[in-house]
């Protein structure tokens, strides 16, 4: 089954500016998709629409076959919590909480695991990303690359089928940026998750298995490697 499908998705701002228009796109499990394009091409807007953070002006987004336009905000929130994971350009970790607690927030919010199991899962995620020693540290005590990896661990907290990342390497040096893309590649290839990454870095985009290029809110090319 198609994991994520966009059908003629258009987003227009009330002022009349069109952010994305007539997007048709489907993503299968295990795909690692890079969305590229010049700034202002609407790639972030598309990501928010596909990540159910925003609603399209027209067209529809289907997640695992469900039409998300029919869902009320609390149901969308529940869907994001259970099925999606987000990584942003800024790590957006809560500064008052340790790396471990930050990863635990979505797990605890979902409430499907007992406290012991939740903590074990969070520690496991951190360890898998090479952050076993950072669990008890506050975000301010971590380097930029480590913070972004904690953010990835948090995105994976509830075992999402789809991970959405908006310029996740924008604040990282080349080495850390490459490491983040390696992680995404592994998540797609080994764990079968679909990854959607917005980036303007063409070199990094080539690490993905599929590249969707956007210009002025429209898809101009969609190539697989």
């Amino acid at each position, binding site marked *: 089954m198609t994991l994520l499908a966009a059908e003629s998705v258009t987003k227009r701002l009330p002022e009349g500016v069109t952010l994305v228009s007539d997007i048709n796109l489907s993503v299968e499990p295990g795909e690692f998709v890079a969305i590229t394009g010049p700034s202002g091409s609407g790639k*972030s807007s598309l990501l*928010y629409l596909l*990540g159910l*953070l*925003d609603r399209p002006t027209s067209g529809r987004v289907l997640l695992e076959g469900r039409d998300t336009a029919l869902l009320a*905000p*609390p149901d969308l*929130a*529940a*869907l*994001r*919590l*259970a099925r*999606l994971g*987000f990584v*942003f*350009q*800024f790590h*957006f970790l*809560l*500064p*008052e*909480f340790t790396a471990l*607690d930050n990863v635990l*927030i*979505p797990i*605890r*919010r*979902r409430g499907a695991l007992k406290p012991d199991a939740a903590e074990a899962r969070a520690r496991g995620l951190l360890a898998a990303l090479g952050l076993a020693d950072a669990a008890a540290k506050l975000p301010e005590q971590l380097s930029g690359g480590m913070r972004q990896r904690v953010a990835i661990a*948090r995105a994976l907290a509830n075992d999402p089928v789809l991970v959405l990342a*908006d*310029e996740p390497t*924008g604040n990282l040096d080349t080495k850390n940026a490459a490491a983040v893309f390696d992680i995404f590649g592994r998540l797609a290839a080994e764990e079968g998750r679909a990854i959607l990454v917005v980036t303007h870095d063409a070199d990094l985009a080539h690490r993905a298995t599929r590249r969707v290029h956007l210009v002025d809110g429209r898809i101009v090319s969609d190539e697989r490697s």
Partner: protein
Amino acid sequence: MRLILDLARGMLSRRRRQTLVSVLGVALGVAFFIAIASLMRGFQTYFIQQVIDVQPHIVIKDETRRPLPQAAELALADGAVQINGVKPRDRPRGIRAAGDKIAVLEAIPGAAVAPILTGPVLLRYGSRDVSINVTGIEPARYRRVANLEKDMLQGRLEDLRSAANGLIIGDALAVRLGVQMGDSVIAVSPRGVALQMKIVGIFHTGLVSLDQSAGYTLLKVNQTLQDRPNVVNQILLRLADVTRAEPLAREIEDRFGDRTESWEEQNRNILTVFVIQNAIMYSVTGAILLVAAFGIYNIISTVVFEKTRDIAILKSLGFTERDVQVLFLVQGVIAGLLGAALGCLIGQLMIEGLGQVRFRTETPAGNDRFLLAQDWRIFAVASFFAVASAAIAAVIPARRAARLDPVQIVRGAA
């Protein structure tokens, strides 16, 4: 919910200083409320206690509340009757059938009953004349409704029986007349009866009006002096439960027709002053809490403003608007609870401190300190209002936080 609490605590603890300031604001409001309320309540309770203590709880008088209806009015109730120039019948005053009424009243459980006859008397000693009010009492009954016995400086109530025409007077009156225990004075009533009376006791109540111009003798003696044999003009009642006074007074008046006043009715002016006093107290402390609430509004607003990114990420992770709203409401309530707890502590300390204050003035009642009420209800009310106002103050910023659109924030940050 545990998660929301943890998040709220984390967010507040990060802004420790501002949190402390707004918590302190609430705490001061609560503390002042507690201190002032316990001062006022203490004073009022003491005052009412005094009133209840020195006065009978119910007084039945030899008058009616409304003039007695005329016969013509009764006969022609619906007619257009106007009666002019009515001369009241010269009816001997006094409570009629007093003996029967006393018997009925004594059957009321928890009630002590004492009949008295009061009347003006001129006391003459040597060349000095002083006009006083003499109350004729039956010592055995009267001591159960009034506190005269406690106030005796010299002599006892029973001494009224042992001496012929014994008289007990206030200490200030004794000084004015220049009499001492055992001296004889001449008492003259408006009816012209004159008796030689012996001072068998001296009392001091602290109330100048009583100490200067009140005297007590036996009921029989006063009836002779006033030339009103077997007449009683007041019946006094004292109850085990003072709160029953007002309803019972109404019941008695309905039954006997005699004007019956409870201690509440007799002191209505003072009780009204208390109501106004309480209103002032509540407005002042309400104002303090209002200021404190603004402090809480301010800190929650600041937190919301500073935490927009965190709010955005929480919402993108899958927190609902409700979750976010509760998260910030909880922060307000936490600040309110901390403030209430701290305020109760400070309030208790203030009460202890006020309790140490001593005045150097000699007040009639002999008080040299603040009278403080220790009532858990004051603490409960103050805490409730603190937490409630904190929660209300947090509602507006919490709603604003809940409505934040994560897309706009993330886009703005990127």
